[in-house]
């Protein structure tokens, strides 16, 4: 076990292949911090519990001549190992609750996007810009995904994680997402933004983020929504404010919807 612990621990420091991404928002970093804090507590408790157990397994073997002791209970021990975990849990719970409160506060956004899930693509509507479009799996992935496609997925860039029309948002802006669905439940997830919100038909859920770094961030639908569930990725491009404005303007001019944004 301690071996496994070490793998996990070193994994934790390694790149995003192994661990949760730190992400590009204040709250994604906080979430990452919570994740690591709880993880290290578990490692610590694991080391103690498994340490004692392994010691006992070695020392108290019959083969090593151990004679069974007679004790059957101990009030002190029982109280101790009830109370100590409670304290540890409190230490975890307080910062978790703080982060949770912040996650829920989507007031005063700079920009609001209504996201609607469809089987199987996303629809985005920029509420104040009067802009809306569908976003589906990009063609190269689409062609390669079939059973007899003959195309090696390894040759497709961002296989299954590329869309025809990404969401574009300005860096530093507070973006509020209003998430809903047109048919079944979907879920909108971008790990780097630490947002996962279910898209429930007939209900609107709120989420928000404020990206601090420009870049392209990818995610997927994370609620089983039928045959195409694995094929409705999400791409968010965080760009400088003027680039964002330019993008909005071209979009408004009715530029061909298929054009990539770059």
């Amino acid at each position, binding site marked *: 076990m301690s071996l496994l612990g070490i793998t996990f621990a070193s994994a934790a420091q390694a790149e995003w292949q192994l661990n949760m991404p730190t992400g590009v928002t204040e709250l994604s970093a906080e979430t990452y911090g919570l994740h690591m804090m709880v993880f290290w507590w578990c490692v610590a408790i694991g080391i103690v519990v498994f340490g004692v157990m392994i010691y006992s397994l070695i020392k108290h073997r019959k083969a090593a001549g151990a004679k069974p002791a007679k004790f059957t209970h101990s009030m002190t021990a029982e109280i101790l190992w009830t109370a100590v975990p409670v304290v540890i849990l409190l230490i975890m719970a307080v910062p978790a609750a703080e982060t949770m409160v912040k996650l829920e506060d989507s007031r005063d956004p700079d920009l609001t996007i209504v996201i609607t899930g469809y089987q199987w693509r996303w629809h985005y509507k920029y509420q104040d810009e009067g802009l809306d479009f569908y976003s589906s799996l990009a063609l190269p992935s689409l062609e390669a995904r079939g059973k007899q496609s003959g195309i090696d997925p390894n040759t497709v860039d961002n296989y*299954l994680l590329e869309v025809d029309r990404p969401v574009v948002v300005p860096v530093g802006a507070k973006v509020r997402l209003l998430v809903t669905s047109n048919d079944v439940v979907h879920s909108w997830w971008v790990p780097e933004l630490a947002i996962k919100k279910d898209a429930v038909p007939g209900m609107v859920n709120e989420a928000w983020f404020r990206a601090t770094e420009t870049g392209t961030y990818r995610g997927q639908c994370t609620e089983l929504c039928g045959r195409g569930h694995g094929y409705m990725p999400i791409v968010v491009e965080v760009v400088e404010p003027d680039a964002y404005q330019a993008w909005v303007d071209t979009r408004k001019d009715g530029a061909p919807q298929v054009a990539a944004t770059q």
Partner: protein
Amino acid sequence: MATAAADITDHHDDHGPAKGIGRWLFSTNHKDIGTMYLLFSLVMFFVGGAMAMVIRSELAVPGLQFVDPGFFNSMTTMHALIMVFGAVMPAFVGLANWMIPLMIGAPDMALPRMNNWSFWILPVAFGILLSTLFMPGGAPASGWTMYPPLVLQTGDAFPFLIFSVHLMGISSIMGSINVIVTIINMRAPDMSLLKMPIFVWTWLITAYLLIAVMPVLAGAVTMLLTDQFFGTSFFLAAGGGDPVMFQHIFWFFGHPEVYIMILPAFGVVSEIIPTFSRKKLFGHDSMVYAASSIAFLSFIVWAHHMFTVGMPLTGQLFFMFATMLIAVPTGVKVFNWVATMWRGSMTFETPMLFALAFVFLFTIGGFSGLMLAIQPADVQYHDTYFVVAHFHYVLVPGSIFALMAGAYYWLPKWTGYYYNETLGKLHFWMSTIFVNVTFFPMHFLGLAGMPRRIPDYSTQFADFNFIASIGAMGFGLSQLIFLLVLLTAKKGAKADDRVWEGAHGLEWTVPSPAPWHTFTTPPKNRIAEESF
């Protein structure tokens, strides 16, 4: 032993087992019914496992190779339903049938005819469920959680799914009523509640949980049925309902359900560790209180499966705190096991090995459970392979290992012979190594962003998926060793009544194999000496 022999040969009007198929079809004997439950669940474990192999084969490398996405979803759904309702739960009921009357000195289960019925409903239920594989529109593909509106898109399989769930529920409820009544009403006169073995205790609590939540599941799927066919609006926002309402009702059942699958496992392990440590279970009473607390808490944490569904803040806070609390009584259990081993005199036969692996690996699964309970972090984990890793750790090296441990532990009592220890150890080591190879990398996959329930994935997830698939094949093949153990179960040395050096309890006072009828009159004055 003399007294024991006298009790058991005391047969009067009782005849031996009937001949032929009638013995099994019409059985009212707890041992025969227990055997049927156990064999049925083994078959289901293999069927569900075969489906897992389909899943893992498809996921071994990126790209679609073998199945269509729709069929893949059916495999995931059926795998889970079969493993949960067909393998793990009936297996524990099988152990309960065999062992509870022996442990409490009862002549049989309290309601023997109903006992037969609760078993024979299962083949019907799973026959119906498996037949959906051949129906237009395919088998259910909405995940075992059956969330609407997706589940309403199921084809002809839909009503069959609903009614097979009803049947599973009826079977479980009747089985549980039998367990509770047996435990409350059929104990040997001098066995007070707090003298009961922990396995009996955990089953008492489990049965209570089952009776409390299976009807709720039945209600939930009934609402699905009427929404689909009779125009009700339970899960339709336009009519004033809410799709999320189903999730609440489902998880009100679903969360206690996961403890239904682990509490009897705790019980089995609590029997085995003292035996092979040659030391009495540490903190017997606090084990009882811990199990009861877990059961109580399990009713008020369900929405931790719904942290991303858009609940009000207060709800999320409440469910996060309540969920975290479960770590406390579960910790008490783990600590008590360790304290039982402490300064014992341990030997490592196969049951003990499985029990020890259970303690290690279940705890790891518990830790990841605690991580999932942290709501902001769960936003990142939810519906990814991190969750898949979590629950397979608590279910496979958890529930399944405890079942294996129990099977090896009581096999000599059932057959009268020691199983092949070398094969048993081989089975253990192969299983333990491969189970980690299979499920440990899934943590990384989940953290790296791989959603669950997808038939194909981005190439960056390829390496760990490949490892997991190799592990799964290895784990699956290792289970064939267990078949071999069963086939050779009567080839070993003859077992005496006690079977294991450190074993204590009434079940070890009757001959091995346990005769068809035991304790036709309740054992007297043997409880005290047995619970040393």
